[in-house]
């Protein structure tokens, strides 16, 4: 076994003036001005056991083994509610119960996210595109570098990165590095402690 998961727990909790600071797990800033919408986007395909349209409420509900296949992600859950606006882009989707999302970020890294609930929101204000997926309820993101938990975890799809309040990260480390660093005390500062 070449890989050992060395655990470094970092709690970016509320301390002094930096309380509730958002942990940003990317280097790209959010809410950038949107570029002209020119690229055609592949459609999103959803499979489920059953489906309901409440046309008076302009809402549709997918139930049972819901599978969403989107160009940016794959999502599974038990219950998916899609709002149908009278015009324009679908702007609000709620996924509930055993939500699992797999997506590839802008660095080509595969991410695996789980939560009790995920809420997709889309809007464009002053030429700025905001497209987010907010994970709540045992929200967790895993990738090759770390496992992160937070409440909520917000995936910014417009910029393809995610942020969270009170984000806790458990880093993965190679066996060689881990053997030299065993029994080290846990980090106690507010700084993000990456494995050495």
């Amino acid at each position, binding site marked *: 076994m070449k890989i050992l998961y060395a655990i470094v727990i970092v709690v970016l909790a509320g301390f002094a003036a930096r309380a509730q600071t958002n942990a940003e797990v990317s280097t*790209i800033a959010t*809410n*950038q*001005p*949107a*570029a002209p*919408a*020119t*690229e*055609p*986007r592949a*459609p*999103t*395909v*959803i*499979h*489920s*056991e*059953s*489906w*309901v*349209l*409440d*046309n*008076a409420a302009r809402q*549709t509900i*997918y139930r049972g083994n819901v599978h969403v296949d989107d160009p940016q992600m794959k999502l599974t859950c038990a219950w998916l509610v*899609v709002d*149908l606006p*009278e*015009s*324009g*882009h*679908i702007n609000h989707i709620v996924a509930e119960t055993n939500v699992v999302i797999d997506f590839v970020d802008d660095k080509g890294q595969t991410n695996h996210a789980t939560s009790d609930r995920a809420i997709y929101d889309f809007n*464009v204000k002053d030429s700025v*595109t905001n*497209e987010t997926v907010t994970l709540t309820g045992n929200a967790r993101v895993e990738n090759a570098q770390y496992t992160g938990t937070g409440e909520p975890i917000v995936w910014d799809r*417009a*910029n393809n990165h995610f942020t969270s309040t009170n984000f806790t990260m458990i880093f993965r480390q190679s066996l060689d590095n881990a053997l030299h660093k065993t029994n080290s005390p846990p980090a106690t500062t507010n700084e993000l402690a990456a494995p050495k």
Partner: protein
Amino acid sequence: MAFIFLFLTFGLSGRAQQKAGGHANNFISTEYYEAPHQQQMKTRLSGAEAQPLPGGLLDIKNFKLETFTLSGQPEITASAPECVYDTINETASSPGHLQLDYGAGKFYVEGDGFLWRQTNSFLTISNHVRSVIKMSPENKAAP
């Protein structure tokens, strides 16, 4: 309820005609919005053939359901090879396949077994649901 049933058979003369035994071709049932929009069509049910069944039911072939917004824009277009339309309870149902377009092609869904409740605009598909949502062109954030 502003429902109008039209049983039309287009023969050589082009006049509406109902066949013996109540069987009709080119069935159309139309509902309009309530006042003050009573001139605006809300829902149109249609079928190539309609065969009356006991209890106020109609066995409809090549069923088509269309709904329209207050501004007259098409909203839902659904079709099924066949269904049973309940004229008393204003429902349409079938164990068969249904295809539906919503919002001028932005949203598509299909599946097997459906129930349409006209009174509250409620549609249920019971099995094997597959849906396609066409999102807007990709809005990528500027660097």
